[in-house]
């Protein structure tokens, strides 16, 4: 098992090294090499998936597996690095490697002809490696390392077309916002380490259950971890970077912002679930619910196809955190996997649409493309059904229904919010579908050129479409085999509630899905454009608010960035004048003296007096002035001093 895990991680890493070194000179600029690398990793992941299904687990704790190596030692405390595979890891491995593999294949066509073609694949490989490190880590420190490496790779990939300013700004914004989130992770690390002196998951969970970590620390640590998750999964306060990240190439959006990196946040909370106390779970749930609704509303008002998908991802992640918050651990992780498939499907679908319309992303210029792009159209439609939770046929339904059931049991209030979000999801997804594929083409020029994408792009769409349907059924009942043992482990820590499948919730979920789709059909398909405008007018102000993303960008710019710059400039000025000034007197005069300018006296005497340096020189200046050259003043000073001492002598 260990060497399989090593293959999974090292294959893409070797690919990255070879590609970045020789990529340019390889035939087809080395895209086959990278596809081979991720393919090998995917194959290994499938084998591991099978093995774990058979009950085999790689536990770093027991020495037999020797999956743990000493990294650093401080006194008697030892920090080590290890690999851990259990049910959850197996699922994640499968999802990550599969989606990565498909994206590699897709981008070999999509990125064709880009000047830095080889570089793109190098960083895709590195991204997969860091994601796999994150998933395979057996302790929080290695997870954190993977976490930040993923941040770096997303910086590189978002800012891939670095000759233009917007991608660079977007990449920087992404890195810094996630970095703020990472602060939470560091705080959590410190809190946990100060009590348990170890980062391994099993030590942490044992301490949490046996009271090693006191309640207060557990809450703050878990909130720290959640803060990091919020940063990476673009939850409510830290979501501003995700829409801008759409500046990156579409395959990047598909891989990173649909399936893997964004999901890392959910994986983190899932993996460290035993740490969470009820208080922190409530926070997770409420943030999740609010994000789900808010992101849904914003998505409704977006006209760029990729931005809609981006906000829908944020909303779906909000759903998952809602599930986790309501202790529906199993449901949340299940939704994570299904969402990965159909969201990747839709991103790649939108990629093929954009490719077809020569990089046109504005939906208002599209329309009626179904006839031109049949495969993309149908697969996209199935994706929309899945995300809307169309009953029984799509996997989305099962996972979303499970979350709603969990929410129903834990916090009924949040359940209704969740339900509302579900309706919204269906509504805006259908709007997207309708505006691009259905109805009359709005822009003749775009419509003329549209043509079905090559096979390399449609194959991944088909595979993902199949999976987004199949994932719902419990093939080889992988739920019970993989997710439940880990869930059981988590429940052992006493924080996962038991949930039974209530009929009432299911029906509600079904109606929500259909109502959303139906409304979408009526509003966007059938209704004539002018009545559509009339319908929209009362919501006009609302829509502008949604469009400007509730003004969060401006808010951050005013509240955080501007004062930081002002403070920086003020400090820099004080540093030059104040602290530095305290000693600047000598320095400044030395410089002016060095220039030997004739105006020394003028500069020193009436120059601005600064700090100790200047005091010394003023003293020196005073001394020089007493040397008036007149002998009588000299003698006078002498005798006056003697007289003064005499008088003082008398006093004492």
């Amino acid at each position: 098992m260990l060497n399989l895990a090593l293959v999974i991680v090292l294959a893409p890493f070797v690919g990255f090294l070879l590609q970045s070194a020789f990529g340019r000179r390889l035939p087809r600029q080395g895209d086959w090499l990278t596809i081979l690398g991720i393919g090998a990793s995917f194959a290994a992941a499938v084998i591991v998936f099978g093995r774990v299904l058979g009950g085999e687990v790689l536990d770093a704790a027991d020495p037999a597996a020797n999956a743990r190596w000493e990294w650093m030692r401080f006194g008697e405390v030892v920090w080590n690095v290890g690999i851990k595979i259990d049910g959850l890891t197996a699922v994640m491995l499968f999802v990550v490697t599969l989606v990565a593999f498909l994206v590699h294949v897709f981008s070999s066509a999509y990125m064709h002809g880009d000047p830095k073609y080889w570089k793109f694949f190098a960083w895709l490989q590195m991204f997969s490696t860091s994601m796999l490190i994150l998933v395979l880590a057996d302790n929080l420190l290695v997870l954190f390392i993977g976490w930040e490496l993923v941040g770096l790779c997303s910086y590189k990939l978002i800012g891939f077309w670095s000759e233009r300013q917007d991608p660079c700004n977007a990449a920087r914004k992404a890195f810094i916002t996630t970095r703020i989130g990472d602060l939470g992770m560091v705080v959590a690390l410190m809190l946990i380490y100060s009590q348990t002196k170890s980062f391994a998951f099993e030590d942490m969970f044992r301490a949490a259950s046996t009271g090693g970590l006191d309640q207060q620390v557990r809450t703050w640590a878990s909130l720290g971890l959640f803060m990091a998750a919020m940063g990476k999964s673009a939850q409510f306060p830290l979501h501003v970077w995700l829409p801008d990240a759409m500046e990156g190439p579409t395959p990047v959006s598909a891989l990173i912002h649909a399936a893997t990196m964004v999901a890392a946040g959910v994986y983190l909370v899932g993996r460290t679930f035993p740490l969470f106390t009820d208080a922190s779970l409530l926070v997770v749930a409420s943030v999740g619910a609010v994000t789900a609704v808010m992101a849904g509303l914003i998505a409704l008002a977006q006209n760029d196809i990729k931005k809609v998908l981006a906000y829908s991802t944020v909303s779906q992640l909000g759903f998952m955190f809602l599930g986790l918050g309501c202790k529906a651990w199993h449901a949340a992780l299940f939704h994570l996997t299904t969402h990965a498939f159909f969201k990747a499907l839709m991103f790649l679908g939108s990629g093929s649409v954009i490719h077809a319309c020569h990089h046109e992303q504005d939906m208002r210029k599209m329309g009626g493309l179904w006839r031109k792009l049949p495969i993309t159209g149908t697969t996209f439609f199935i994706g929309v059904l899945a995300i809307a939770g169309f009953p029984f046929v799509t996997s989305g339904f099962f996972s979303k229904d499970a979350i709603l059931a969990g929410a129903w049991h834990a916090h009924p209030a949040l359940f209704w919010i969740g339900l509302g979000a579900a309706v919204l999801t269906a509504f805006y997804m259908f709007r997207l579908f309708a505006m691009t594929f259905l109805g009359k083409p709005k822009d003749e020029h775009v419509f003329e050129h549209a043509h079905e994408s090559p096979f390399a792009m449609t194959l991944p769409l088909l595979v993902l479409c199949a999976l987004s349907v199949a994932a719902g059924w419990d093939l080889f009942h992988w739920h019970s085999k993989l997710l439940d043992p880990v869930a059981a482990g988590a429940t052992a820590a006493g924080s996962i509630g038991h949930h039974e499948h209530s009929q009432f919730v299911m029906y509600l979920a079904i109606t929500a899905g259909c109502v959303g789709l139906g409304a979408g059909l009526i509003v966007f398909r059938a209704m004539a454009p002018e009545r559509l405008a009339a319908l929209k007018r009362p919501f006009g102000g609302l829509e502008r608010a949604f469009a400007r993303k509730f003004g969060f960008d401006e808010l951050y710019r005013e509240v955080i960035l501007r004062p930081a710059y002002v403070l920086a400039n003020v400090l820099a000025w004080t540093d030059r004048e104040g602290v530095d000034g305290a000693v600047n007197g000598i320095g400044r005069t030395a410089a002016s003296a060095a220039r030997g300018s004739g105006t020394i006296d003028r500069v020193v005497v009436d120059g601005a007096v600064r700090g100790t340096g200047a005091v010394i020189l003023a003293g020196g200046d005073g001394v020089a002035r007493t040397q008036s050259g007149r002998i009588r003043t000299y003698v006078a000073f002498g005798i006056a001093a003697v007289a003064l001492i005499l008088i003082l002598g008398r006093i004492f």
Partner: protein
Amino acid sequence: MTAVSALLPTILLTAGILAVLLADAVGKGRRPQVLPWISGAALVGTAAVAIVWLAGARGDDRIVLGALRMDAFAFVMTLFCAVAGLVSILATLVGDGNRRPGGEFHALVLAAVVGMSVLGAAVDMVTLYLAFELVSITGYVLVGMRRGDRLANEASLKYVLFGAVSSGLMIYGLSLLFGLAGGTSLEALRVAVAQGAGTQPVFGAAVLLVFAGFAFKISAVPFHFWAPDVYQGAPTAVAGFLSVASKAAGFAGLIRVVDALGATAQRAAGTGTVLRWLDGSPAGVVATVLGVCAVLTMTLGNLGACRQNDLKRLLAYSSIAQAGYMLMAVTMWTPDALASLVFYLVTYLFMNLAAFLLAGIVIRSAGTSSLDGLKGLGYRNPWLAGTFTVVMLSLTGIPPMFGFLGKFVLFASVLSEGYLWFAVIGLLNGAISLYYYAKPLLRMYLDGPAPDAPAVRVSPGAAVLAGVLVLPVVAFFLAWSPLATWTKSVLPTLRIGS
């Protein structure tokens, strides 16, 4: 060893003076080449006698003719001043090149050395005053040697007026002390102080007035005013002579007087250091005055120098500051402190003479004594600039130069008395001094080569002399401990008369 052997240095020097004057007269107006040889021989002879005496069995140091005690300290001072005199004469010869100084120059230098040697050995008020005046008067004339030079005239005028007034104050103080002591010998004064003469109100005034004289001689505040102007006006070699020899003699005389004022008695009686300020005892008064004076001299010397743009004035203020450090040692009045003073004087001798010699060479070739004359010297004449840098850094007290060792020993003695703040003030003054000692370095190196500046000719004689002076400044930290132990053995035999 009869009294004659004790007076051998003085006799030799006087013979030298007569021979020089005779040779000058006989030379019928032409300045014969022989003059420097005569004066040189006299000075070397005196130095040899001193070395022999010091190295030898250090025979009895009884009081001679009731006026002199040629003990180890006196012989060290004689050796010290003889070497300074010799270097000054050589510097003048090497420096001026074309105009050989007249016979009277040599005579005056020899006379000054006699005065200094006697001042170091004086145990009687009369001899003290006479030696003091001899050194001063020869100094006045030496400063005013170049008749035509307006600056030299003005410098000598200031020197003579200021010096005369200070010695006037001193003699008036001495007359009061004479009254108190009932006799001219310092021993009588010490006895009188021991018997409570110190409590008389007039005692404080008398002591102060005497200190005025010595403060003038060692250019300590508040009687330092003459130093910058006189050093600037006087020929550089003479300025060097004054800054080293007359200052050392001044310190020697000061030590004799302070001892007579019961400092050692106080020290021996085990009542802690003499520096119990303002504790009412006569020695306490003395200590307070000295301490305050030391701090003022140090700080004022350093501050003044920061603003200078003339090389000679800069060196003048630097010598005032150095006087401040040395005065700190006298204030401590412990055997360690006095040994460190002698040690510091040795470092001071080499550093300052080298500094003035090099300054003389640079000023003569650049034509101006302002710092701009040094521009780009580092590129034109690297060896000269290098030695000058070494001397400057040594004056600042940067290890491994000789100056650092002197400061180290000095501050160690101060710190061992527990006067933390006193030492810290001294050390910080040392740090500030870097600012002005680095000014010449700034000009020589950091301004970049100055192509148009005149080439600097260094005559072989000057190069050798500079080498002899700078060598110990650089190399002495290897042979440092023999000097340190030797200075302990050379302490003035205090408790005059015992």
